[in-house]
């Protein structure tokens, strides 16, 4: 008996839109900061949402958001990074180092991603309720 295929693809490498919510005001001033891998993302990869709206992406943040950036999966893959979903609307960008591990590569790749990214929404938005 064959097992059912997972409800999400193994990898994203096409025109899927990826969203990254901005946690700090500084991410608006320098979008590159938003694409620096956080220590808690070290094992999983850089967290992005897909197959959702920018609002859905922002709502994932606990208290507030400073905006949302978007880019396409194929743009990320062009940098020899991988986009691996772990659910039907969440994926991780694999291959980014922590800045503490490789500062030049971390900032360089964050720069490439930030240049490709489009600001979908900007400005402080607090969660209500």
């Amino acid at each position: 008996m064959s097992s059912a295929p997972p409800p999400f693809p193994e990898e994203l490498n096409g025109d899927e839109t990826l969203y990254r919510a901005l946690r700090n005001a500084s991410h608006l001033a320098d979008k590159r900061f938003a694409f620096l891998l956080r220590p808690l993302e070290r094992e999983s990869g850089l967290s992005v949402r897909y197959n959702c709206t920018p609002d859905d992406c922002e709502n994932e943040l606990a208290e507030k958001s400073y905006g949302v950036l978007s880019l396409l999966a194929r743009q990320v893959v062009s940098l020899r990074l991988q986009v691996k979903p772990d659910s039907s609307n969440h994926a991780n960008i694999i291959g980014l180092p922590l800045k503490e591990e490789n500062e030049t590569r971390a900032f360089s790749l964050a720069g490439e991603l930030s240049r490709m990214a489009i600001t979908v929404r900007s400005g402080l938005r607090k969660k209500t309720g």
Partner: protein
Amino acid sequence: MAACPVLDFGSLASDTPTTTTSADAGLQQGQNFNRQISIEQSKPLLSQRPDELINFWSVYASMPSVVKKFQNLAVSDDVEVPPTGYAQFVATQTVPAVYELLTRSSALPEPAMGTDDSGAIMVSWSRADKYVAANFGANPETRSFIYFEQGTERASTSLTENNLLDRLRWLLG
């Protein structure tokens, strides 16, 4: 008539690139926060050449916003993690000192400033196709560095006052 304050900006006159010495590593090790500034000679304000006077005012006009930004960072709601005391101390010692030494600091773009999850401070400047970022480590054990790029050329170096001065001069060049 009130006495005219003696303002010293002998150190602002030179724009000659500086070299990095092994002593610069002191910043990283958290042992040497003293500014490596050699003050040439104190001169009263009225004895300055016009270009030096213009430079003086442009430096002091551009500094408060940077200093205020550092101060605000510790109490700002706009950062998830406030900077550590160590990062704050080193950054507030280093960046204003470098601005003071730059003869064209008023030409610097407004820096972006934020923190990471560990409380390190990140400051960046962009001008045309050049980019400079300074990462002030959260504690003496974590590396503080400067990242810089122009087009496809990217590199990083240790974060010292001299190195940051060189990089910001390069940014303005």
